[in-house]
């Protein structure tokens, strides 16, 4: 196994609950658990439709519990960072008294020996409740609800939204081709790959020719030119979002390399004010020095700082603008 790269995808999602889930979450802040009637059934946690027919359910809510019976359970020996408790606990399907379906939640039983199918559990409420399934901190053995910490009371308004902070860390292998392309980049070179069948050129990280569907590797490598011409571009007004670091309009240009039929797409520019940007400018690659490399914000371009006008006369060719690829 060669090299790996860490990457985290995380985002603070904001979800709207709708009338039924919203009612349940609001009730949680009041230390109440509610179900929804469906004929003879009481579904808890409540859903908006009949699971058998799909028909919309009337908002006929019923208070249930707070205690219930464990119908099935598991024992999580090593909780993950997303789990509700940070010490071993049970996930359980709990038939809350008065409901005809079961609710999934954590049971903080202390040890696996305290768990059994059929045992009675009751909610331990968080002191501060916001209208979230974790307002129940966990269920605990017994019949009686408890509150952990100071009880700050129910929500002032009906709860309509919830936050979900998803965060997943990925460890992605870097392929041999990518490594070699990055190595070349480190050395201030562009690595290309030439398809032995159709002769097309691709940037080095690419593993294959998509036209011929054949793998490209070490033996197909070529050094790509460092000079080219801007064939097309856009200027982007940055949008704020978590992870965004751009604050001023920035250009991304397409560069057709000299003497090589390949366009490098969406490249950054150097010393080229967006107001001066136009098709036909001759440019060359500018690489960061070792000192500058440390300052570089993480971008896709590695050591490449961008493309700088060479000062040579523009290329005038009406076909240039069509060379996006």
């Amino acid at each position, binding site marked *: 196994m060669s090299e790996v790269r860490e990457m985290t995808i995380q*985002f603070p999602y904001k979800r709207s609950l709708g009338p039924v889930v919203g009612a349940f979450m609001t009730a949680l802040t009041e230390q109440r658990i509610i179900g929804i009637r469906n004929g003879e059934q009481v579904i808890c946690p409540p859903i*908006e*439709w009949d699971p058998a027919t799909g028909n919309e359910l009337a908002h006929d809510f019923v208070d249930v519990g707070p205690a219930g019976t464990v119908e099935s359970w598991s024992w999580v020996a090593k909780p993950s960072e997303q789990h509700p408790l940070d010490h071993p606990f049970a996930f359980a399907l709990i038939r809350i008294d008065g409901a005809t379906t079961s609710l999934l939640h954590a049971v903080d039983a202390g040890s696996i020996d305290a768990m059994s199918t059929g045992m009675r559990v009751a909610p331990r409420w968080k002191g501060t409740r916001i209208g979230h399934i974790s307002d129940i901190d966990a269920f605990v053995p017994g019949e009686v609800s408890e509150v952990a910490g100071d009880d700050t009371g129910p929500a002032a308004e009906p709860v309509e939204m919830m936050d979900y902070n998803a965060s997943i860390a990925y460890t992605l292998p870097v392929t041999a081709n990518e490594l070699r392309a990055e190595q070349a980049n480190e050395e201030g070179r562009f690595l290309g790959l030439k398809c032995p069948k159709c002769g097309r050129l691709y940037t080095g990280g690419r593993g294959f020719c998509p036209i011929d569907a054949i793998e490209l590797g070490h033996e197909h490598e070529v050094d790509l030119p460092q000079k080219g011409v801007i064939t097309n571009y856009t200027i982007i007004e940055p949008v704020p979002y978590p992870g965004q670091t751009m604050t001023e309009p920035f250009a991304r240009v397409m560069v057709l390399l000299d003497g090589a039929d390949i366009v490098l797409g969406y490249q950054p520019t150097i010393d080229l004010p967006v107001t001066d940007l136009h098709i036909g400018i001759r440019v060359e690659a500018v690489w960061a020095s070792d000192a500058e490399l440390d300052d570089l914000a993480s971008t896709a371009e590695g050591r490449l700082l961008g493309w700088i006008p060479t000062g040579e006369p523009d290329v005038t060719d009406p076909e240039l603008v*069509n060379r996006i690829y």
Partner: protein
Amino acid sequence: MSHQPCAIVGIGQTHHKKARRDVSFAGLVREAAQRALDDAQMTWTDIDAVVVGKAPDLFEGVMKPELYLSDALGATGKPMFRVHTAGSVGGTTGIVASHHVETGRFERVLAVAFEKQSEGNAQFALGSGKSGSLGAGGAFAPYMRSYIARSGAPLDIGPMVAVKDRLNGCKNPYAHLKLKDIDLDTVKASPMLWEPVRFLESCPSSDGACAAVFTNQAGGEAAAKAGRQPAWILGSAVRSEPSTFPGRDPVRPQGAVDCAWDVYGQAGITNPREQIDCAELYVPFSWYEPMWLEAHDIAEPGEGWKMTERGDTALGGSFPVNMSGGVLSSNPIGASGLLRFTEAALQVRGMAGEHQVEGAKVALAQAYGAAAQYFSMWVVSNSLDPFGN
């Protein structure tokens, strides 16, 4: 086994908005689905299979949401399917649903496509959380520049499309944007987002859902007899091509051309400009109207913008495009393709209300995705044989 006719007999959509905070995911999707069922005069239990489509799950942070939506869509005890072909997904959803019927294996299939993207951030999802995201517009801006250069189109064409589609949107009760005071000057004065595309030339980000009920020939004919005109699918096709190889033309992609002629061939169309009455094309940025008119050979190369300029593509023109207001008026990304497809169907069913094209008999719908590399298209008509073949 051969191709059996397929009819759309029920269509529903939500009121598309920037954020539908009044509903859960299920609530959003059911709103469209219930409307489609009501239109088809069916209940959840009448449906044999459900096909769900939406764009990347990173938009909402719910992976494979069709699992959670299974019972919300009445799919318990039924087949449930989830397609994902980037921006064209709404179209592909409709096509896959139609295939379920066309094989003769299913009688009544519900297709649903949706996006509740206000829960996340589309730019974030498109860039997978990295800085300096191009966004969708940034990626396509060079394509539009290339079109403007190669066609010689005057720069007002993009703004003209923006105005036309938003004014059409005012006639569509479900459209997200209803900019009744929009005009060329306000569009041209709006901030540049991805040069050369301005804010008012770009699609909104919407929460929304769209649903359609597909049935077979017997079902379609029964609906027609009961006074509920179905839309018959005359042809449907999809194409994909790789995004990046030297010499690729993303302005007139080969996939766009091939997909169109596949659909035209199935529908018996040899002259799309004349034989098609109106079209719903996936135009998220203004310049895509003339670009698609040309890429799908409705206009000759270099002539697409003239159709716009002449007013051919206006609601009252000779080849109306995006009568519903299009993607420029509503863009719940996963649903947008199905919205195009169902809006075309509404036209030939005579059910498009204020944005109805008078006497529309044959309508074209198209959706595209990713780097203009996924295409899904269909042609619908109120007759199985509109050209009298």
